[in-house]
């Protein structure tokens, strides 16, 4: 039996119980924390959506000018808030990681995730 004052040399059965109890405690703590984080996330998302809804929709702008195509991509790649220098570097990294020549890859758009 487990007691509040454990002996220096623990019997193997008690050690097994403590090991299981410890693993269960970690899961219990983490699951509770996960629930708290999930609730927190939902609250923040709801608050953000509310804020977005409160902002009046902008008047429809005149025909939006087409995004400038990045050079060297046959006019297909669209850059969103990304400099062409950065885009070139990213494409080179992806090509290197995939082990394929750059001209065999097709990039559609590059957008910075904020």
């Amino acid at each position, binding site marked *: 039996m487990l007691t509040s004052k*454990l*002996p*220096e*040399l*623990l019997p*193997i059965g008690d*050690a*097994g119980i*403590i*090991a*299981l*109890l*410890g*693993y269960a*405690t*970690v*899961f219990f*703590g*983490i*699951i*509770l*924390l*996960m629930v*708290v*984080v*999930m609730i*927190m*996330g939902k609250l*923040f*998302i709801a608050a*953000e959506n509310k804020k977005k809804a409160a902002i009046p929709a902008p008047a429809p702008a005149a025909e939006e000018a087409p995004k400038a195509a990045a050079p060297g991509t046959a006019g297909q790649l669209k850059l969103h808030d990304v400099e062409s220098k950065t885009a070139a570097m990213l494409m080179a990294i*992806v090509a290197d*990681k*995939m*082990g394929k020549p750059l001209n065999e890859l097709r990039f559609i758009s590059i957008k910075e*995730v*904020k």
Partner: protein
Amino acid sequence: MINVGDILLNLWNSSGFAALFSGFMAQGGWQNLVMLVISCVLLYLALVKKFEPLLLCGIAFGCLLTNLPGAGLYSQELWTNFMTEGHEAYHSYGTILKEGGLLDIFYVGVKTSLYPCLIFMGVGAMTDFGPLLSNPKSLLLGAAAQLGVFAAFFGAIALNLISPEIGFTSKEAASIGIIGGADGPTAIFLTSKLAPHLLGAIAVAAYSYMALIPMIQPPFMKLLTTPEQRKIKMVQTRNVSKAEKIVFPIVVTLFVALLLPDTAPLIGCLMLGNLFKECGVTDRLSDTVQNALMNIVTILLSTAVGATMVGSNFLTLQTLSIVVLGVCAFVLSTVGGLLGGLVMCKLTGGKVNPLIGSAGVSAVPMAARVSNLVGQKYNPANFLLMHAMGPNVAGVIGSAIAAGFLLSVFG
């Protein structure tokens, strides 16, 4: 007229060389010489093989200093008296400061848990909890990967059935188990409280295995997953707002410290460091904690831990058991994380790549990098790093909870 001969004789008698030839070897001094060789091997691993050099270099040098005959930089006896109930030096830091050597004074920071907590503050300031916040379910993988902690604890107790010489007491077993958390500061924090005499062996085992993660984990990742599972591409998770990142460390501190108060020093410092990073108005503090403070504490911590590697303590069958149990703990934690990943993969209908489970062993960010590398071997267009960072930082919280549990049971 001064007697030059006497001066030279006194100089010789006070030297370490004289100690070597005057009964030192017979009094167990050979163990110190073996430790000097071991410290050189550790220095080689740190400097040439780049095994966690920032820590192992200091640990190895601390080991070298503490085993120098006659130097008196660290006194094992002082710390034994410090821990002996009823002794006049029991829990007397005054005695340590008055009679101790330089490394004894360094060690006060380990004994009081100051260094591990400050290191945790630095870790917090360098950690981005965004991936975990965007996918809170990844916290479960951080819990699953604590399997090795409790399996190694059980294994250490079970060794008593084979032979008491290689077995361990419950406090020692708890300290060995925490190696499976793959978190150096947590291992040092717990061991300094439960089994300080094993601190050197446990710290060396923990940091060495952490450096070996790219070699230890991949075979088990391949063994437990199919090539199809390794190719699974995970969808991009949601963006996390700044406010959410600021509130997170406060919520975690309140929640975890209330659940397990023994984890409060570690979790509190981890989250304070993270708050410095995220709040945006304490950039100077965040910078100091991440760099200057972290570097200073790393020097003091590593040297002090190395100082505990005194020959008579280290060269035992127990050290060998710790080395074996340590690697078992790492492997079982990896297996636990991977099994958790497989369960999540199954439950989500194949949306979770089980390889991110192995990152739950903490060891930030090495374990997450290993998940990413193994995933890219099977699908070069698969970028698992950010997905693996969730379980990786969850592992830090998980190992702190495991340490808190062990401390509340055995402390």
